């Protein structure tokens, strides 16, 4: 290429037949050679697959994420196969089967008399098999948390996308509303919402979702603000991509990574908040088995029947810990790829 470069130290160049400036034929030959020589170096090794496969590989290396996933798989299995795993229906009162309220656990393997029926976590205050209730509780807890997070993230993402993309007064209005929501302690606000809507599972889910919308809105908005300035967005505009398509097909997929991480961590929070609301009697109503309300029902028996408090609490912790570990692992797995 340097052959064709103008050299100012030369006499004024006039294009001549034997040395034209744009030697197309000559450079054609050179090009073919160059391409042959360089195409090997021009190609980066791309044996790796998609984004998610890379993240997947990364996450398997994280011990904490593996522990989190194991904890959660056990919970998921409990929830999915509850009718098979639980020896009794969760609502069945067993007084006619020779049990009394708050019986301690009876496990035949550990020397409990064979003539007594087996209740591995004992009997609760209303004569129901505690283990069965714990198992069914996984269903309510997981379902409620997932639905709450799904609802909150969909609305939060929508708000964040619109605020970040359109900016101006739209942004100001939406984000100030979000700030108002965020200025209340979340549980307090959830209690207010439930008080207005009335207690119950659906309302508790709604309350927790509404309270967490601002978190998602903020994260998505900030991603949109940075993505909007990326060169590929200008490139897309130069290709004639419309604003809505740009938002939905170009910007939104780029906000997914942080969204997935905080949604995973958000499930942990939602689990805890559902349990809290139920503990306060504002969430899931008896007799539906829910760990928070089970904890509340037996909280006065901590010293006389500690197992009835301990296991419900343990399950809540198990669930929260699982999602937190998985969320942390996901963040570590996905973030370094973005930095690369």
């Amino acid at each position, binding site marked *: 290429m340097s052959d064709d470069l103008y050299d100012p130290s030369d006499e004024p*160049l006039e294009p001549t037949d034997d040395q034209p400036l744009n030697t197309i034929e000559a450079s054609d030959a050179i090009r073919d050679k160059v391409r042959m020589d360089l195409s090997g170096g021009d*190609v980066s090794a791309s044996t790796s697959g998609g984004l998610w496969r890379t993240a997947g590989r990364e996450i398997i290396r994280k011990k904490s994420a593996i522990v989190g996933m194991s904890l959660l798989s056990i919970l998921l299995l409990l929830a999915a196969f509850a009718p098979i795993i639980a020896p009794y229906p969760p609502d069945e009162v067993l007084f006619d089967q020779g049990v009394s309220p708050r019986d301690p656990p009876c496990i035949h393997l550990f020397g409990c008399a064979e003539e007594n029926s087996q209740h591995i976590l004992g009997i609760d205050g209303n004569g129901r098999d505690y283990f069965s209730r714990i198992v069914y509780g996984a269903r309510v807890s997981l379902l409620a948390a997932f639905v709450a997070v799904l609802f909150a993230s969909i609305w939060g993402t929508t708000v964040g996308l619109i605020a970040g993309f359109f900016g101006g007064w739209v942004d100001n209005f939406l984000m100030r509303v979000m700030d108002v929501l965020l200025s209340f302690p979340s549980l307090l606000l959830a209690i207010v919402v439930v008080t207005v809507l009335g207690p119950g599972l659906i309302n508790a889910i709604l309350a927790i979702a509404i309270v967490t919308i601002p978190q998602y809105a903020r994260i998505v908005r900030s991603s949109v603000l940075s993505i909007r300035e*990326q060169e590929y967005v200008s490139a897309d505009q130069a290709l004639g991509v419309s604003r809505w398509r740009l938002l939905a097909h170009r910007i939104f*997929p780029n906000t997914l990574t942080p969204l997935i991480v905080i949604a995973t961590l958000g499930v942990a929070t939602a689990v805890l908040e559902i349990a809290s609301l139920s503990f306060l009697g504002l969430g899931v109503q008896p007799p539906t088995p829910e760990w928070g309300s089970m904890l509340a029902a037996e909280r006065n028996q901590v010293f006389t029947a500690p197992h009835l408090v301990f296991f419900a609490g343990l399950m809540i912790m198990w669930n929260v810990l699982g999602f937190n570990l998985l969320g942390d692992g996901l963040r570590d797995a996905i973030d370094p790829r973005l930095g690369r």
Partner: protein
Amino acid sequence: MTTTAINDPVLEIRGLETHFFTRDGVVKAVDGVNLTVGKGEILGLVGESGCGKSVTSMSVLRLIQNPGEIVEGTILFHGEDLLGLSEKEMRSIRGDRISMIFQQPVGSLNPVFTAGSQIAEVYEIHESLKKKAGNAKAVEMLEKVGIPDPERRAKAYPHELSGGMAQRVMIAMALAAGPELLIADEPTTALDVTIQAQIIDLMREIRNDLGTSIIVITHDLGIVAEIADRVSVMYAGEIVEEAVTETLFAHPKHPYTRGLIGSIPLAGDRREWLEVIPGRVPNLIDLPGGCRFAPRCKAREEAGLKICTEQRPELINIDDAHTVRCFLYQEGAK
């Protein structure tokens, strides 16, 4: 005003003024630019950073964002004024009839989509093709821009491509819909010299094979010498010289152009000093009253011209295909 007879002009920019209304004042990024690009012609647009090259090209696509605004002028594309079109009509022109490639090839590709799917999307938007047909055409396009093993590359993500590869993908995207005009904004700046040569060849090949008109925006005169048929030199928001490439390099007229050419370092040429143009590009908010280059102009001092700081020079025809905005060539100016 250019009087160069250009047959069958694809793009004609007349008196374009694009200003940015900032808190500190009005930045006249483009201030009365006239440009004409003929069919199948490669026009080089040269100038220092901040002289308005990119703003000119973004104005053509009407992608100037707040606080910028096109305040004056016409941009005729095949005789139709782009400034009079609705946003929707404009969108159907972008990427379809006029497209653009950018300086940062990797950054200009969306990181979460494969190269192939991004090219395919152009077909989806402008030719209403289905995904599958679009993907097939994307692979074809990748092959056309000289990407080896195009089927595998189509499935690669941008971070898996090298700079040169990504620039080829960008070019494939820009050419997908068969545009009549391609604007290349510093297409080779971010690339290795060897890859630069390949990309330049590729663009020349595109012009020869498809008859696409190309505007190459660059600050690198070497690239212009390689590729352009005609060159416009921009300084502080206006065109200061325009000529056929050979003429411009052989007989540069404007002191700024001469300075630019003189400041190219050459491999194997050892000089004590590299020629430099003293001073900096003037503040576009507070432009000098007369000729914008006057404060940095040595030729003016040598010739002892007073008019330069008092009056704005007009473009003067040196000959048929050579115009310059300088009082040195105006009769009676001395």
